[in-house]
């Protein structure tokens, strides 16, 4: 860029009286400063984003061994992964837990937000208490839930025994283990999402409801025909967030098995993120772990796209 060219007619006129050095500085300020301001992000991204991505790709093309040998394998890790039933089991676990957790979570959160949107005393206290799970630490809570779901003396099995249900082995049976982990996830995030939905609901003009009420629309009808469609941007935000969070699930299932990334004796609840850590840092096959990381990324892109399309259809008849 030429410094002699005036940046902008009106401005150069205004600054004509100033000394040249100062003018240069202000030109620099206008032209270069925007780049300067966004540069920290991009520099850091290059160092801690681009670099790892490129190297993950690089590592994924090599075969690493516990003994420390490295061997070029091309796409070998990827083809091996696609034929590895442990990997697919981790994918199924991850997707299943995501669904089991997310669907009720969204429904409860919407319901809760709708309830919170009414007039109450102690409104702040109530809103704070549904947010409380979020500020607790995730591992601490997983420890508590793990004890609640213990097979022999857990509270949950004790309550189930009132209804004649035999002790459930929550860490051995696949579907129950998913339920237990989904419960932890939902406990943590439902209140938070409800607050986000609530914020969205409050931007909906109230006269819309009043008009609908005059037209004789029931509350339920109002919810489906006004609230939900108007909430769509918020829904997209929340669903995309839950998708990324759900598909990279790690803390809860790991803590559920005593900090062990195996996820049950037969990987009953091992997620893809746990699979990556197991391959990379328990088996020391960095290449295999790197390839799995790329497949996880693919999974997230697919998941995000499906959810995005799905949510866009919700209340499409605005």
């Amino acid at each position, binding site marked *: 860029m030429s410094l002699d060219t005036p940046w902008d007619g009106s401005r150069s006129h205004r600054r004509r009286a100033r000394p040249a050095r100062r003018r240069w500085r202000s030109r620099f*300020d*206008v032209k270069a*400063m*925007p*780049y300067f301001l*966004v540069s920290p*992000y*991009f520099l*850091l*991204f290059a160092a*801690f*984003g681009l670099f*790892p991505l490129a*190297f*993950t790709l690089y590592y994924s093309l090599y075969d690493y061994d516990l003994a420390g040998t490295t061997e070029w394998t091309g796409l070998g890790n990827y083809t091996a992964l696609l034929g590895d039933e442990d990997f697919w089991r981790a994918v199924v676990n991850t997707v299943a837990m995501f669904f089991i957790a997310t669907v009720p979570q969204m429904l409860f959160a919407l319901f*809760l937000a709708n309830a919170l*949107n009414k*007039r109450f005393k102690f409104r702040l206290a*109530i809103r704070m*208490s*549904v*947010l*409380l799970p979020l*500020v607790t*630490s*995730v*591992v*601490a809570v997983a420890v*508590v*839930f793990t*004890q*609640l779901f*213990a097979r*022999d*003396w857990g*509270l949950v099995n004790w309550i189930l025994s009132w209804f004649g249900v035999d002790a459930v082995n929550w860490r051995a049976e696949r579907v129950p283990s998913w339920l237990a982990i989904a419960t932890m996830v939902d*406990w943590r995030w*439902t*209140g*938070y999402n409800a*607050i*986000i939905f*609530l*914020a969205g609901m409050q931007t909906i003009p109230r006269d819309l409801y009043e008009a609908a009420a005059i037209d004789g629309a029931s509350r339920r009808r109002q919810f489906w025909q006004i609230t939900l469609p108007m909430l769509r941007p*918020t829904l997209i935000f929340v669903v995309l967030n839950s998708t990324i969070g759900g598909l*990279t699930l*790690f*803390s809860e299932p790991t803590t559920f098995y005593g*900090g062990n990334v195996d996820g049950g004796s037969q990987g009953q609840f091992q997620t893809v*993120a746990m699979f*990556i*850590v197991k391959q*990379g840092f328990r088996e020391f096959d*960095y290449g295999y772990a*790197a390839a799995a*990381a790329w497949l*996880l*990324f693919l999974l*997230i*892109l697919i998941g995000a796209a499906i959810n995005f399309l799905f949510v866009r259809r919700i209340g499409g008849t605005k």
Partner: protein
Amino acid sequence: MTNWSPTVFTRVMLALAIVLSAFPLYWMLVIASRTNADAVAVPPPFLPGGNLGDNIIAVLNNEDAKFLLGLTNSFIVAATVTVSVVIISTLAGFSFANLTFKGRNVLLVLVLLTMAVPLQQMGVVPLYRLMVSLEWTGTLKAVILPYLLNGFGVFLMTQYTRQAVPMELVEAARVDGAATLRIWWNVVLPAVRPGMAVLGINTFMLMWNDFMWPLIVLTPDNPTVQIAITSLNARFSTNYTLIFAGTALSIIPLVAVFIAFGRQIVGGLMEGAVKA
């Protein structure tokens, strides 16, 4: 306006939601305040016992538990990352929202793309090997550095700044001869503070709860609080009261902050959610 008053059903459901939200935390206190035999008793105890103080002292006195170090480390990590992310995002958000420059839209789309990348999972192998070759494993540097950027933060602050700082305001300041950084400091920062607060709270929580990366890159003798709980769990496998006292201790700081700033946090979250 009867539409806006809750039905009995709504009230009951809300009460239930509150009870369910609080129960695991209450349960944590019940076990943490009892003896080890009570923890595995059937039927389980439902009221707190009298040993909370003793159990917490036992955790704090236990050299292996490293609880205070874990709390301090977590605070250092979360606070450093929060400050960095908030500053970087606010600067970039201002630039994207209020300044015109070549390639702005391209760069903004790039930021959006980086948001979809689960860096923590994607980068785990090379980042670990990088930390090993820098001999940074086991140090907090290794936990902090990869998190200093956050695409979501830049996106949030761009959106927020767009809504909170009208272009006319920036133009007017320029006409008055203010340099870009001065505009940022005097005009933009005061207007986007609520957005910064939301981003700050979010980032702080995210880092406080970070687990996978510290589990890989740290060692139990220099843990974050999540790692300290995990080691406590592994080392004292049958000592439930000790483990629960430790976990209770680990959530107290955040809960205290939450109660102190509850109004701001709830309000900030809601405002941020709408504006972003």
